[in-house]
């Protein structure tokens, strides 16, 4: 699909989220709620004691009854539908021929770790802070966006072997 057309499509999805639920899109938050509820189920005492977890368990709602959790399930389904639509469904490890599949998986794991850690700190990832933040003109969104892309460009040279 033409990137600009895809951008308009994505923009209308974001606008719909703003119009219906008064909020932007998000992704890393869903990951957090999943972790929080797992910790709450596995180690309830620890969750009760911790300043961080306890704030998610004192409300009426369970952590998984969250907008973001359902949205993320939708993303999973939406990706699948689109993949089936365009014939891209395939189990595979995508990596540059210069690195092994194992190395790619290790870096993907580390990347995910860093990304979500940073997203928790900045209270939003590329979708929650940068994209949705820009769409509501929030200062935080612009700052986070510049920081993400700026640092990715800075680090790009060190990881060039992984990609090109």
């Amino acid at each position, binding site marked *: 699909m033409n990137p600009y057309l895809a951008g308009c499509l994505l923009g209308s999805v974001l606008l719909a989220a703003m119009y219906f639920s008064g909020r932007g899109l998000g992704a890393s938050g869903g990951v*957090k709620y999943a972790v929080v509820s797992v910790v709450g189920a596995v180690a309830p005492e620890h969750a009760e004691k911790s300043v961080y977890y306890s704030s998610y368990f004192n409300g009426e709602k369970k952590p998984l009854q969250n907008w973001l959790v359902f949205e993320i399930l939708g993303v999973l389904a939406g990706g699948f539908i689109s993949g089936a639509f365009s014939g891209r469904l395939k189990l595979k490890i995508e990596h540059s021929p210069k690195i092994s599949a194992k190395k790619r998986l290790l870096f993907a794991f580390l990347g995910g770790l860093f990304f979500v850690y940073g997203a928790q700190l900045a209270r939003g990832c590329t979708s929650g802070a940068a994209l949705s933040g820009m769409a509501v003109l929030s*200062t935080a969104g612009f700052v986070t966006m510049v920081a993400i892309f700026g640092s990715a460009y800075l680090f790009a040279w060190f990881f060039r072997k992984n990609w090109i």
Partner: protein
Amino acid sequence: MGPLFILSDAPLWVDLLTAFLIGIAFGFALEQAGFSSSRKLAGMFYGYDTTVLKVFFTAAIFALVGSLFLQYFGLIDLNLVYVNEYYVGAAIVGGIIMGAGFIMGGFCPGTGICAVGIGKIDALFFLFGGFVGAFLFAESFPYIAEFASGYYKGPTKINEWMGISAGLFTLFLIIIAVAMFWLTEKAEKAFPKPEITNEL
């Protein structure tokens, strides 16, 4: 008048169902834009494929322009739409960590989940990493709480901080984006990697 579910006190399940439907559309749009491929996403940082930048800015500006027009015609109250809270230090440091994660993993959380949907195993590992990252953050939160919640500026809007109207700021943003679109097309011509882009 929007935001519908904030003004109407709709039951929780309606909101969650909408979240699911919006998620489907979100995932569909991401996948159609080609964001389920990490090498396409990483291409932005080496100049051979700048789809991310184009989609990202088009989407943000489309939603911004749309919301401002909706407000002008009295269809939405933007005061009731969530504006991100601005914690100066956390936003900058968090953004830098995210940038490092981006170039290592090749996904961001949204695109990673979308790529899991079409069966990318590297995306699944990215997601596992994400779970560990969220867990580590929760465990380390007591030690960094002061920094993470410090330098708080509230949900500020950038145009108010600059003292101009939202419409005028949008025009500036659009001019920057249009210049960037032009530059990225130059970059794609300057750093072509046909062996990668043909494969995608």
